[in-house]
């Protein structure tokens, strides 16, 4: 189930600012309180796919005395795509909440 939403989760993890792959996976683990405990490597195909789609941009960066890393950031299209996916998710999760919660008023 998580795999279907991985791209949106990665976009959301980069909303706060540019980050490299390791930081992205750490953000996902921290924000989900360990619920999304997926193999760390699965984030890289998602990052690459989103970059190919123009939703992310990336560049190599080497901080002074640090390790060379590829840093990813949201593009304008990425920000718009994240807003769109958020809206879709809100509607979907509200519907599931209503169904599973036994509220018979949905759809209104």
């Amino acid at each position, binding site marked *: 189930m998580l795999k279907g939403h991985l791209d949106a989760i990665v976009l959301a993890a980069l909303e706060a600012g540019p980050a*490299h*792959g*390791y930081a992205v*996976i750490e953000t996902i683990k921290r924000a989900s309180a360990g619920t999304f405990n997926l*193999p*760390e*490597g*699965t984030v*890289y*195909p998602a990052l*690459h*796919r989103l970059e*190919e789609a123009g939703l992310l941009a990336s560049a190599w960066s080497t901080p002074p005395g640090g*390790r*060379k*890393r*590829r840093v990813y950031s949201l593009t304008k299209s990425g920000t718009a795509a994240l807003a769109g996916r958020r809206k879709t998710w809100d509607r979907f999760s509200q519907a599931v909440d209503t169904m599973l919660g036994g509220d018979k008023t949905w759809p209104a």
Partner: protein
Amino acid sequence: MAGVIDTYLAGLRREFDFDPALGRRMAEEIEAHLWDAAEADPAWPSADAERRAVERFGLARAIAAEFAADAVARQSKRTWIALVATLAVTFVAMRLRQMWLGDVGDLFPTLAPVVDRYAFIAALAVGTVAWFAWRRSWLPLAVCLVAIIASVGAGILRAGLFVDGAPLSVLIAAAGEIALIGLLAFHVIGLGRRLRRTALLRRVR
């Protein structure tokens, strides 16, 4: 002796044989990740810390399979674009040849015009059906390629383009369709290779 991370990265590069350039880039990127993860381990510095970083990262083959599946999607898109361009240019070249042949007459009037026309129609029909039914399939695209080659081959034969006297527009169009057939063949072969590699990575992971 190579460490755990170095060995893992060497294996990862090997799994990316469907796209070695991407494999080199990913290995470079993932190397930083693995060292960060190993250094964050309480047992660092040790082989155990490296081993745990690699384990948390996941199987190199599984990661390569994800990339290979994405590569198939991209390659499929490129192949379809090449097919549409080849069909369009071949159609224009056929019309130009036809107009010219109206003046000078066919060199091989019996079989060549039939192959020229119906092989093209077959390519168009197979391509249209495949677009709706088997968009990720390799075989219909290969069939289209063979049909276009037959059509263009017959067209060139009937017009005798190797003989002096063809107008420049006809020759340019023929050169364009031959170049696009080359491009289409390159993409069809690439798609077949990536599909086979993806299937193999998924089967044995």
